[in-house]
């Protein structure tokens, strides 16, 4: 059983507060922007799996905000050591949600190495995350969300997903100066 990605994001949306920061990658980012456009969506992650490291920088510099990283499994494999760095940093405000489709989706949907064997939940637990869990059923995920979304981090939640609705891939926006300025301006807004 797997979860359509857009339905997982729709389930998450009510739990993300205005002051929270969301760092999302690739198709999860495009879906999230379409479903929940908000000033504190951080889209300037570059490439090569850097979202978790951007999330850590934001969590360290903004201890009074929750930081959600909506990561990809292919992305995380390119920066797997970041799990250890995050665990060692002492941050408690970082929630890492891994959207695992077991493929490099936007690069032709080729399978990950060892796609049917990799245990992402186990990676995070072994790295020293406070808690780690997996879901492959939408209703189970939705029911469990209130129980962990406000708990101290670092928290890992692995979602076994499949593509949902085909939201457009606006690469020009996520790599453009406008998106970074919108995020920067959001810090100046009164809380």
């Amino acid at each position, binding site marked *: 059983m797997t979860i359509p990605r857009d339905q997982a994001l729709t389930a998450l949306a009510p739990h993300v507060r205005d002051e929270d920061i969301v760092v999302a990658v690739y198709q999860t980012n495009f879906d999230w922007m379409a479903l929940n456009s908000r000033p504190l969506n951080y889209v300037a*992650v570059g490439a090569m799996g850097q979202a978790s490291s951007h999330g850590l920088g934001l969590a360290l510099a903004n201890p009074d905000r929750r930081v959600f990283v909506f990561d990809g499994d292919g992305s995380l494999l390119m920066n797997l050591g970041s799990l250890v760095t995050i665990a060692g940093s002492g941050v408690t405000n970082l929630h890492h949600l891994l959207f695992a489709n077991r493929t490099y989706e936007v690069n032709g949907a080729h399978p990950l190495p060892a796609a049917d064997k990799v245990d992402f939940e186990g990676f995070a637990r072994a790295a020293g995350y406070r808690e780690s869990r997996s879901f492959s059923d939408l209703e189970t995920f939705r029911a469990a969300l209130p129980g962990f979304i406000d708990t101290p981090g670092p928290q890992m939640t692995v979602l076994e997903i499949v593509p949902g609705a085909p939201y457009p891939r606006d690469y020009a926006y996520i790599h453009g100066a406008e998106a970074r300025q919108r995020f920067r301006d959001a810090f100046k807004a009164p809380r």
Partner: protein
Amino acid sequence: MVATSNSTVDAPSVPHPSGAAILAAIKAAGVREVVAVPDIVTSDGLLWPISHDPDFRLTRLCKEDEGVSICAAMSFNGTRAVLMMQQTGLMDSLNAIRAIGMDYEMPVVMLVGLQGKEPHLPPEQSSVYGVRIVQPVLRAMEISHSLIEAPGDEAHIPEAVDRAYALSRPHIFLVGRAPEAS
């Protein structure tokens, strides 16, 4: 394989910079966040003292390109940081610096030890290939950089850090001689 110099025999003795003076200059630049992968050039003179200094928060990394993203992300609310590594890590992080520092125009300040460089020679005259190419590579990438070799070189650190954050661009300090701990 790590290339090492074989041309230090009979090399002239040269003064090394003060680690304490470098750290004072970093503090004067308003930096309190340090993210680092250990580097033998800066280990005794900078990283160990930083790890014991309550004025700094040190975040230890598994790999250098993580630090490029961490420093850039910190800057969004005005937090200044320094990323420390060896030149091997710099070479490994070039794509992150290209994407995040240059394409995205983000301030990432780095302190890079030149492992294997002969203390009496400028980097581009080193017999070590991995040292000799550093400045030409940085020039090709249009990345601002400067040298910290002799006592007093640290004086330019605050102004260079200020400029990096004012322009929202990377700057790399290349440390060519191991700083003294004092």
